[in-house]
């Protein structure tokens, strides 16, 4: 076996060597920072995903060393592999900036923008995308498409109105479960994710569709409206799970586990798929072995809550008794005795 061939690719004037067969997006992710195009539908763990949302469009100003012609159209970086000597323009191309702003506008066209009441707010990729690449206003003056909310079984709620049709959940169900019972119905702007006849999604790993959803279309019913994600403290934890790896992120407030999700990397992608039991049914702190705070490596509001260090599940060492020189706290006023004032004296 010969060594794997390395291709030299230049993205926004930064040159990097990557193995042949790497996509432009993944090469850009190796560089990191602003050079990386945003991706709303591509998911490295899901085979066949990508190419649909068009947010990762880039300009190829030089095809390769052998064929230096530029590509005539902008191309989806998530589905195009690099060639040796390829030169790619992402944020240095005005065409790309313009097209991407257009795509963001299109994606938000029928999106309800109900972030204040959406559970995804704070960890929503569409929020990040429109903040980074969108315009401040929309030119759309028409009614947005709406759908009824659907319960997909006891754990998952589908709110199609928010969906951007990235197909990630369809691929997840296809590749994680033996039988896929949901897909896309209808066409065009009236297309919807659905189970056709209202049917619950019943599979040990189906909860992962919540994690892959870039927006708030698929939400965890055990967590809906319980708390804003940025008030919660994410912590890595694990347990012995017979079905999955058991490696999760717990989202706590105080001692209480509000929700359990899979661990997500810096691109917002799940590291290990977790099972429904871990996700929905195991919500006692005592069920888990806590490893420590989870670093949220995204620029979302969650990362704003710096809490790293000796917080998390550590109890403060200075208890009341310690500060009070060994004396136990005593009641300043016995409410019971006070309330006796109100007793009917005639009795």
């Amino acid at each position, binding site marked *: 076996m010969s060594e794997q061939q390395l291709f030299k690719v230049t993205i926004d004037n930064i040159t990097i060597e990557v193995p042949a067969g790497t996509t432009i997006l993944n090469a850009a992710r190796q560089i990191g920072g602003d050079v990386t195009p945003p991706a709303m539908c591509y998911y490295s763990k899901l085979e066949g995903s*990508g*190419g*649909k*949302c*068009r*947010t990762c*469009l880039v300009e190829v100003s030089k095809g390769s060393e052998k064929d230096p012609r530029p590509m005539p*159209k*902008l191309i*989806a970086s998530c*589905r195009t592999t690099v060639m040796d000597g390829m030169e790619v323009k992402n944020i240095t191309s005005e065409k790309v900036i*313009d*097209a991407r702003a*257009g*795509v963001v*506008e*299109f*994606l938000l*066209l*029928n999106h309800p923008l109900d972030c204040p009441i959406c559970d995804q707010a704070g960890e929503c990729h569409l929020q990040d995308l429109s903040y980074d690449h969108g315009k401040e206003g929309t*030119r*759309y003056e*028409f009614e947005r498409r709406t759908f009824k909310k659907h319960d997909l079984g006891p754990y998952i709620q589908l709110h199609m109105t928010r969906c*951007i*049709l990235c*197909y990630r959940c369809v691929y997840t169900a296809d590749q994680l479960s033996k039988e896929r019972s949901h*897909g*896309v119905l*209808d*066409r*065009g*702007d*009236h*297309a919807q994710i659905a189970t056709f006849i209202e049917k619950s999604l019943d599979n040990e790993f189906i909860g992962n569709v919540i994690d892959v959803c870039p927006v708030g279309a698929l939400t965890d019913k055990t967590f809906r409206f319980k708390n804003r994600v940025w008030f919660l403290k994410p912590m890595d934890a694990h347990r012995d799970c017979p079905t999955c790896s058991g490696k999760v992120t717990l989202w706590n407030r105080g001692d209480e586990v509000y929700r359990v999700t899979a661990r997500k990397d810096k691109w917002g992608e799940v590291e290990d798929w977790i099972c429904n039991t871990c996700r929905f049914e195991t919500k006692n702190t005592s069920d888990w072995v806590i490893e420590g705070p989870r670093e949220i490596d995204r620029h979302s509001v969650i990362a704003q809550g710096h809490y790293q260090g000796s917080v998390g599940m550590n109890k403060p060492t200075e208890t009341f008794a310690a500060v009070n020189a060994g004396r136990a706290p005593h009641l300043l006023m016995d409410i019971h005795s006070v309330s006796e004032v109100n007793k009917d004296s005639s009795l």
Partner: protein
Amino acid sequence: MSVKLLLAKAHVEGIRGFDVYRREGGYQSVEKALKQMNPESIVEEVKKSGLRGRGGAGFPAGMKWSFIAKPEGVPRHLVCNADESEPGTFKDRYLMEFIPHLLIEGLIVSSFALGSNDTYIYIRGEYAWIVDILEDAINEAKANGFLGKNILGTGFDCEIHVQRGAGAYICGEETALIESLEGKRGNPRIKPPFPAIQGVWQRPTVVNNVETLAAVVPIINMGGEEYAKIGVGKSTGTKLISACGNINKPGVYEIDMTISVEEFIYSDEYCGGIANGKKLKACIPGGSSVPILPANLLLKTAKGETRYMNYESLSDGGFASGSMMGSGGFIVLDEDQCIVRNTLSLARFYRHESCGQCSPCREGTGWMEKILHNIEYGKGKISDIDLLWDIQRKIEGNTICPLGDAAAWPVAAAIRHFRDEFEWHVNNPLEAQEKNYGLAHYADPIHVPVTA
């Protein structure tokens, strides 16, 4: 009288049946191809003929055939694209309905050239009765030894299967067609890989239009070089044009691409002039997706030359002042037609037919339709026209498949050439509900700048 290669015998009594078709010289090309030629030489003949894909894009057919991958032990497939759903295009339907054996004959020869033992005809679901016609023709061909095992004793096996679509325009796009043929949702695939490498069931596949495959028959019979002598320049052979709209004689015509657009519209041999003595206002010369042209730019190019019915001349001037041959759906609009309304109905079509896979097309087509609806019904603003332009610009070229472009072009061309009609609609909302803008200056001769 121009040369007729495809429809010459289309109206012979009983030509739909095998016996009459054979008596009229049918299936000679199969005998010639299978007995005297080898696959490579057939591909070579098709290359020499200069035959261009008749489905719309006009890509050289021989070139497409030579791209097909030939890995050892992997079956290859030929798929005939009969999912003719472009508004204004009905040439394939005519060909399959009247002379089905011509298509079957072309399919056998092409299958031999490409090494396809299982060939598929993916037909538009609405063409329900044509499925029966084709299946009868296939059975007759089989009964006479032109299909099935060991055709004409040459050892070549070939079966043709007819598969009905379920009524989606998008399935005319070759990769969406392949998905649909495999039994999946008809979403276009992301290319590469191209079908020539990984098509149906990940096997090398060629997808060709009905008319392209039928044209293989005269090419084999007369030889590629002879075929290339018909027509002009890179527009070789004959082309079926389905003419419709405000003309005296709508129908399917076979032309040899040497006649002018003016002759095609006004001569009695073809469209027979504009109906009811009206004047020509505009025309969509190649099916609903191609840019619409006003009368003056249709008959003469921007340089003042006569425009001809062929690939090069119709696209002369690019999109700024030209259009495309497309699939040959020739839609003629007279002076009473409203361009805004026409553009609205096309936008509605593309919104309805967008597969919804990629965002610009899914959201953009619906947005354009709503804005056009406002303009048509007197609720438009002047800024809407620029907005439409911006939307179409952001759809075009940014989508997975050409449907995005197809949805953007008609809107772009309508605004480019008929902007004053849009403005009139916006500025006179009440009047626009009752009457049309009319012919205005759209047929006036264009000033051609004299260059030294």
